[in-house]
């Protein structure tokens, strides 16, 4: 019985090994050849490219820039995201569902569309600058587009929704009754937060922080578009090194450096979490929080004194404050998307100058004139996402069953191998598949480069871990006695699987599949490297349009893409409930 489950792992393991090791080996190998420029490489030279990269101030500064903007974006995400996640987790019921759907929707929106909204808000002639100069707060418009501040803002928007989802799932694990217990023992709201909620979620906060940090280091579209190609984070630099400078070996070298940095951060995250879970750390953490008590006493006593005579007023004020804070965060999350939606009804010329926010009049001109290239790109994205997701599901079921049910030695390692694509920055996945296609074409005479098949395989590679993760999570919660009950009632093994196991793991599979679908549907970097001239997925079309000659109709097309995302979300809510969807996703990641 248990021996058989092990065989379920065979095919997923082989596929994973070939794709992971193969592609990463090919691109890393490239970095050891002499850079000749113009797409040429010479004989193997060892670490010369690495030495050159670290000595070149352009490249070295890029590493520093990447670390700096990623750290700032991470701090921003945690500060903005934690209170929101806390309120969603604690409000419960209908409200929580509504707020969660909002966050989920924005997390599924493709990066270029978010950036589109940010550009309209933050550009020199944009809504924010006009308001600030118009009301006399600023003398001259402030420009953050094309500099590091803009990139930080872009990166925060890129991962904020995801950070909220992760933090939400962590806060959900802390029973509310612990906060009640703190309150009845005399702790104010603030002190309850500082002594109970924060310490208990601290390992989680660290893990989320490091996840967001590594996500930010690998983020491409947000950095490229908000920085206008002038702020060179590593992903942007890698992209330019390949497509502008055609220095393939150097691009490999930079990618390898980025990969090592990201893996180090992820490794640190893992170590930190296990360390924080040990008793030793728990104790020393307590000591540090005890020394913090003195400072906190001051704040707490002040508030207690203030609230004593007017307790109900204090209660009301506390509520009002949290409503205001959450409302503000929500506006921040939604503003860029709403701006895109509203501005898409401007109508008139297709030139950038026609984009005015708020729109002067309501017009469907841009919708009616949707270019064929956008429609085609939308179709390509749909087909691509559908095929890649289906393949991911087909591999996820046996992989999940094998991981959870078998007793094969080294299951932990196999599970880790399955998760590897989540650790690799997407830019590097794009680049490594790009190199692999050419290497395979050269070796066996196929024409993978620029083909739809290459796109499908690369997307499948990225999506599989999401589906495997959510199937594994739900299988771990699956009560094995259900299958025993079915067989005791006379069902054979196949009918047990079909009538009991599959329906129970179905929602997990579906949640993973929908999420994977939206990840594929919103992807830029992988498709950017692999798309041929004939097959351009939708986000890449938007990206190109924003990077080259701005066509206002990207606004209307983006609005339609978001409407599509909304429909998907409604579907999820109807079928399995958003709450379990969000949690299964966060669970699959962490």
């Amino acid at each position, binding site marked *: 019985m248990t021996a058989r489950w092990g065989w379920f792992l065979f095919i997923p393991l082989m596929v994973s090994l070939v794709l992971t090791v193969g592609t990463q080996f090919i691109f890393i190998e490239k970095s050891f050849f002499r850079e000749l420029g113009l797409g040429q490489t010479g004989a193997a030279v060892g670490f010369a490219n690495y030495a050159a990269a670290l000595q070149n101030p352009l490249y070295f500064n890029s590493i520093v820039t990447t670390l700096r903007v990623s750290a700032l974006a991470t701090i921003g995400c945690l500060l903005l995201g934690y209170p929101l996640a806390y309120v969603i987790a604690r409000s419960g019921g209908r409200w929580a569902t509504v707020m969660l759907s909002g966050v989920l929707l924005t997390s599924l929106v493709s990066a270029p569309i978010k950036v589109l909204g940010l550009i309209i808000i933050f550009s020199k002639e944009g809504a924010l600058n006009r308001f600030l100069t118009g009301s006399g707060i600023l003398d001259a418009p402030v420009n953050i587009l094309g500099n590091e501040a803009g990139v930080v803002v872009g990166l925060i928007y890129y991962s904020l929704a995801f950070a909220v989802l992760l933090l939400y799932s962590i806060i959900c694990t802390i029973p509310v009754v612990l906060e009640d217990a703190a309150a009845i*023992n*005399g702790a104010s709201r603030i002190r309850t937060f500082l002594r109970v909620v924060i*310490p*208990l979620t601290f390992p989680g906060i660290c893990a989320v922080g490091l996840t967001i940090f590594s996500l930010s280091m690998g983020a491409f579209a947000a950095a490229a578009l908000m920085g206008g190609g002038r702020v060179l984070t590593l992903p942007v630099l890698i992209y330019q090194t390949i497509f502008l400078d055609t220095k393939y070996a150097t691009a490999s070298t930079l990618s390898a450096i980025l990969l090592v940095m990201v893996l180090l951060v992820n490794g640190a995250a893992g170590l930190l979490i296990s360390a924080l879970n040990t008793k030793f750390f728990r104790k020393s953490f307590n000591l540090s929080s005890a020394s913090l008590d003195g400072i906190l006493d001051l704040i707490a006593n002040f508030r*207690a004194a203030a609230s004593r005579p007017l*307790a109900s007023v*204090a209660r009301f004020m506390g509520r009002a404050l949290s409503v205001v804070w959450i409302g503000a965060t929500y506006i921040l999350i939604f503003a860029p998307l709403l701006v895109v939606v509203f501005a898409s009804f401007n109508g008139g010329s297709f030139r950038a100058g026609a984009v005015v926010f708020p729109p002067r009049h309501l017009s469907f001109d841009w919708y009616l004139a949707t270019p064929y290239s956008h429609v085609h790109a939308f179709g390509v994205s749909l087909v691509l996402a559908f095929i890649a997701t289906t393949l991911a599901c087909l591999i996820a079921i046996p992989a999940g069953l094998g991981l959870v049910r078998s007793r094969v030695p080294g299951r932990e390692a196999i599970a880790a191998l399955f998760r590897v694509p989540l650790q690799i920055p997407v830019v590097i996945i794009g680049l490594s598949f790009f190199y692999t296609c050419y290497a395979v074409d050269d070796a066996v005479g196929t024409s993978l480069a620029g083909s739809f098949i290459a796109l499908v395989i690369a997307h499948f590679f990225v999506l599989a871990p999401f589906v495997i993760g959510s199937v594994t999570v739900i299988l771990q919660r699956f009560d094995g006695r259900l299958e025993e009950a079915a067989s005791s009632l006379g069902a054979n093994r196949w009918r047990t699987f079909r009538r009991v196991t599959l329906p129970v793991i179905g929602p997990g599979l579906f949640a993973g599949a929908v999420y994977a679908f939206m990840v594929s549907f919103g992807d830029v970097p992988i498709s950017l490297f692999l798309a041929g001239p004939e097959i351009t997925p939708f986000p890449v079309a938007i990206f190109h349009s924003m990077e080259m000659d701005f066509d206002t109709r990207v606004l209307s097309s983006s609005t339609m893409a978001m409407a599509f995302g909304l429909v998907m979300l409604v579907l999820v809510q109807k079928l399995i409930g958003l709450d379990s969807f969000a949690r299964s996703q966060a669970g699959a990641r962490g």
Partner: protein
Amino acid sequence: MQGVPHLSLQNLSKHYGPVAALESFDLEVETGELLTLLGPSGCGKTTVLRLVAGFILPTDGRILIGGKDVTHVLPNQRGIGMVFQSYALFPHMSIARNIAFGLEERGFERSHIRRRVAELLDLTRLTAAADRYPAELSGGQQQRVALARAVAYAPQLLLMDEPLGALDLKLREVMQLEVRRIQRELGITTLYVTHDQTEAMRISDRIAIMNAGRIAQLGTASQIYDKPANRFVADFLGKINLFPGKVLSVEGGEMRVQSAFGDLCLPHRNGISVGGPVTLGIRPDEIRIKMASEISGPSASGVIVDRSFLGNVVELRVRVADDSLALIEARLTDGQYPLGERIEFGCSASQIKVFSE
């Protein structure tokens, strides 16, 4: 303060939308008393506790502690101790720090805190576990930590929300006595919530039986057991045989009731009129098995269809004339009572309870 009830709930209501969890609820708990709210799940007993704790605000009504209106006071300023159903121990703090938490939050001096924690560890026999974490303790130990934490600050009022629900039967009985001992030793006014009637009877000074957001009856365990106010209370606390009857006539202070036990002559109760259907109740241990000729009061006969040996008594289910089942507790010293045997039994009329519903 003499004569003022320690905790007073006045006309308390709590509505969730159109649903009333609690309706015009009045209750007074005397100083040093342990009063238990007993009722089936969903009867509103936990709502009362959460209102007193201040976790939720009432839709209407007032809460007074020691004569002071605390209806709108924040939970952390009510000076209440509480033991939660799942204990709610802080998993990231040692046992000693869990117990110290409430004292630290209320700004006691470090030396005082240390002394008090040591005292409570001693009282709850947990001194050896002071530096361990909640996850490393057994259920019974966790329960004692929760109790120690709740009383550390010497609160005027202690709330306990099904504190023993998670323990197994044997341990629960030990802890019931332990809770009672500690509560008496500290003389602390306690409001206790449970759905376990044996537990309620074992530890309470008084019991309030709750049903559908209201108090069905308030009194000592024996008052409620012997004189249940209505059919719900009689059925909820202890076992009882309920059977229908019909009032034939009312004369003076007595009424004649037609029933499976024959026509009975019972003391008349207000609200019962001639011709009305009533419910009669008799507890299984109040029924005597005898020959019909030996019984002076109401009697009936039936066939034993089920028999369970419970140690001190044997529980018999007897099918009587109208096909209903009567539950009887008999002593084995009086006979063996095999299945299928026809027995005659009776009781004294004064033990029959009459309910108007």
